[in-house]
């Protein structure tokens, strides 16, 4: 090789530790497993709904509680953003959960339709609020409010649409928040169970926390020292292993809310759009 090509000491040390020549490096043996570790198989949205509807199942109560825990924040966010006070929104959320969500009606529809669960839940909350509004206004309706189609009524409808958009946005953001947090918890549990606590810690401190909380990413050197790794290359590789696991878990959790075999790309694009510019 020509003299002008220099090899740094650092590179020589690294190369000295290499066991195989470069051309052999490109020939990786077949036959080894070729799938990254599968995300944990917790109950899906649909199996949980099925279980919640099955009164003979010993886990019905648990499934109902889990469904309520998952979706309460999004339902509450929608109702609160539609202009209700905190106290009223809490009451209405509780009412919706008991009367519609767990009252077999919504869950039965969900299981029959196997459509997008997010859309079904959203439209059900919207209808529930419309019913509640009708009940409230029936009592105090008066002729002075003007005939339908008047300028005032048109303006009021526009305002209602606007509020609905904001409420829908609040619902979607809470929905996504829940998906991300649940996926994080599942990823963490799976990695730790697999003896990959360092992978989780690195992913959390370099990527996940900075995204979700605005924290500063912990430097490679610090994480390398903490976990006794060989510097940036190993830290980066641990990170992407955990990140892929998280992304696959999130993808799976999104898929679980969709009809069987539906491509999740549209739902993912909608969720992305829901987070605004």
């Amino acid at each position, binding site marked *: *090789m020509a003299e*002008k*090509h220099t*090899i*740094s000491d*650092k*590179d*020589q040390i*690294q*190369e*000295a530790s*290499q066991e195989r*020549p*470069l*051309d052999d*490096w*490109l020939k*990786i*043996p*077949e036959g*080894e*497993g*070729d*799938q*990254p*570790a599968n995300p944990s198989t917790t109950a899906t949205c649909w199996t949980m709904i099925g279980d919640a509807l099955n009164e003979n199942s010993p886990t019905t109560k648990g499934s109902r509680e889990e469904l309520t825990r998952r979706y309460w924040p999004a339902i509450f966010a929608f109702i609160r953003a539609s202009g209700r006070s905190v106290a009223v929104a809490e009451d209405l959320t509780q009412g919706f959960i008991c009367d519609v969500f767990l009252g077999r009606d919504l869950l039965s529809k969900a299981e029959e339709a196997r459509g997008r669960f997010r859309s079904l839940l959203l439209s059900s909350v919207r209808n529930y609020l419309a019913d509640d509004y009708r009940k409230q206004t029936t009592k105090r309706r008066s002729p002075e409010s003007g005939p339908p189609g008047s300028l005032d009524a048109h303006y009021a409808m526009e305002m209602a649409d606007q509020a609905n958009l904001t409420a829908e946005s609040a619902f979607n*953001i809470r929905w*996504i*928040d829940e998906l*991300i947090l649940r996926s994080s918890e599942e990823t963490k549990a799976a990695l730790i169970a697999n003896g990959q606590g360092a992978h989780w810690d690195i992913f959390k401190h*370099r*990527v*996940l926390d900075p*995204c*979700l*909380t*605005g924290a500063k990413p912990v430097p490679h050197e610090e994480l390398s020292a903490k976990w006794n790794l*060989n*510097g*940036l*290359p*190993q*830290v*980066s*590789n641990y*990170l*992407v292993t955990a*990140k*892929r696991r*998280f*992304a*696959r878990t*999130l*993808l799976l959790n999104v898929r679980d809310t969709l009809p069987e075999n539906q491509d999740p*790309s549209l739902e*993912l694009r909608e*969720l*992305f759009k829901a*987070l*605004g510019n």
Partner: protein
Amino acid sequence: MNDSTQTGMKQPIEWAMETDVDPFFMLANWLVRDALEEKTDAVTALTSAETTLDEFRTLKRVFKQLRVQGETVSDRRLGARLYAISIAGAFVFHDRIITTQSRERLIRAFTDLRNDTQLPGPLHAVAERALERMSRED
């Protein structure tokens, strides 16, 4: 929940999208983004004259690690190829050989890379240019 949190929440959704669309090359892109702050994807980093020699050395080490510790066979294959491409890139763009591998081995590896149909076209081109350069120096 404020606007910055909402913006931050977009990233996990993007990761899920990438996993859905291009699981093969996604890992390489993520590695590049973590290792080199200014770079966004592996192909651009490995085929750009703006990538510094130190950055090529970093990429070589990162992909070598993927070759050794990748979770799957595909990961390790990808690591092996991009490790060799990092060496080719440093040679093409900075005229430096950043490995102690022999010339014959480099030529064999770059030839394999040039013919590897799994790799994106621009990476073939780097391997091709490295081979041409080596032949000129004979």
